[in-house]
């Protein structure tokens, strides 16, 4: 009797507990080792870019909430900022600070959520709940200022929609303290854990060259030793007024990406604290041209504007032909670019590493498919 082994095609997703949405991954496995992997995307495609062409400039803002719904503030910002650049608007000082505050708080919330779900992928169930608890404090603050917990729709072309309610800045300061304390607990719970380290160290290695060649951005790039953060290298808004570091790691593995994100939470909290101190007590919050929501008509031209979202570089390319609607909107979504490297990373890995590697890239499917 002769025996032979066969490769098996395993279809992970679109419904699978750890694909974070509707992502499909077609892998062939030999035993438990992956020999080929093919990410298949598009299950959440909503045609955002095309929709923008039929909507007035302001009307597209709520749609940007729904790209990376974990980090909607930055999406709001980058779209508004690109229109503002086209129109040449000057943003009031207080509005800039409110934007920074909300964006950085949102980045912390996004990283916390990533931390929770990533640990869930790793098989630890408690961090998920702890992360949600802390994220909830931040969402409460954002809810108070913007009126929504996830799809904020807070920024407007030329400023922000609402001024901070009474006592908001103080509550933000308290939240920052609370989260800083709690993150220490999380470090004790997870980072030192030997099982976690054994699973994450040396897994999913991305070299410096590879990271650049694949166009990675955000924590995934910085964990490979490339010190690139748009907040520092090409300061937008008023980021040049704050003192913060760009955490980088040289290892380029899952653990490095984990450490970079945890360090980034601390840096973001630092920015929030500084912004709380510096923010002017009162002032305009929106440019007068932005107040007329439906009457925004930028002059003819095109612009590309980019910002550092929690997942990486988010960019908006906008073409205007002097109409009420934009002629073309192209969105550079960091998750969409980051997920492409998955195919290369997975080959030769056991299935157990698949979820760790996929989780460590921090992909949001709303953003991949747009």
């Amino acid at each position, binding site marked *: 009797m002769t025996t032979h082994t066969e490769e098996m095609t395993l279809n992970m997703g679109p419904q699978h507990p750890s694909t974070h949405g509707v992502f499909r991954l077609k892998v062939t496995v030999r035993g438990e080792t992956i020999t080929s992997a093919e990410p298949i995307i598009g299950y959440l495609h909503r045609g955002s870019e095309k929709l923008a062409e039929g*909507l*007035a400039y*302001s*009307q*597209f*803002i*709520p*749609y940007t909430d729904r790209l990376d719904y974990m980090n909607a503030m930055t999406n709001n910002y980058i779209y508004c900022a690109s229109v503002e650049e086209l129109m040449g608007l000057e943003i009031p000082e207080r509005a800039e600070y409110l934007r920074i505050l909300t964006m950085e708080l949102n980045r912390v919330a996004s990283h916390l959520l990533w931390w929770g779900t990533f640990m869930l992928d790793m098989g630890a169930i*408690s961090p998920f709940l*702890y992360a949600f*608890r802390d994220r*909830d404090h931040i969402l409460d603050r954002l*809810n*108070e*200022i*913007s*009126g*929504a917990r996830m*799809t904020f*729709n807070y920024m407007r072309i030329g400023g922000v*929609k*609402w001024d901070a*309610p009474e006592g908001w800045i103080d509550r933000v300061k308290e939240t920052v303290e609370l989260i800083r304390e709690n993150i220490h*607990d999380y470090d*004790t*719970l*997870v980072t*030192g*854990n*030997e*099982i976690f380290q054994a699973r994450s160290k040396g897994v999913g290695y991305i070299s410096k060259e590879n990271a650049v060649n694949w166009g990675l951005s955000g924590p995934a790039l910085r964990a490979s030793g490339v010190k690139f953060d748009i907040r520092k290298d090409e300061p937008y808004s008023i980021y040049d007024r704050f003192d913060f570091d760009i955490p980088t790691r040289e290892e380029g593995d899952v653990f490095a990406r984990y450490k970079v994100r945890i360090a980034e939470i601390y840096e973001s909290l630092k920015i929030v604290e500084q912004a709380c101190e510096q923010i002017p007590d009162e002032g305009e919050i929106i440019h007068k041209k932005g107040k007329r*929501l*439906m009457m925004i008509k930028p002059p003819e031209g095109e612009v590309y504007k980019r910002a550092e979202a929690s997942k990486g570089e988010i960019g908006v390319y906008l073409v205007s032909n002097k109409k009420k609607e934009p002629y073309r909107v192209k969105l550079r979504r960091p998750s969409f670019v980051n997920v492409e490297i998955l195919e290369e990373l997975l080959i030769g890995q056991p299935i157990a590493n698949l979820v760790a590697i996929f989780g460590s890239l921090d992909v949001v499917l709303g953003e991949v498919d747009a």
Partner: protein
Amino acid sequence: MFRLLKGFGVTLKFFGSKKFTILYPDEKVEMPERFRGIHRFFPDKCIVCNMCVNACPTDVITLTGKPHPDNPKKKVIDTYNIDFQGCILCDFCTEVCPTAAIVMTARYDNLSSYDRANHFKDIDWLSSNEVYGNYTIEEEVDEDEAGEEK
């Protein structure tokens, strides 16, 4: 090797600490005033300017007006519908409304149903949605009485 044991201390600490659960149907989260929940409509204030229909990014608002009984140049609202199947609660309608006739309340639940048709809310439903929100009502008592008489 033994840093992993520290984690047990953390979970044991949380074991005894205060719980964070909100027992949802029994107790509800108090949403802040600005919360963008389900709309409320004030038919008396509406001037049928059609701004909300234009501003709606998902085209879910439909309205019709009829001539004012006293002054034929003015219009009063006749029907006003929001299709909550498509509404994304973006708040543009209340933002553009010049008379604050359409506002958002902090109500965030009880829109689910077994029938799509139930999501289509008409003027009566919207004006009787009396939940607090980011708006003020003048002579609240009178208005409530008026609503009951209708």
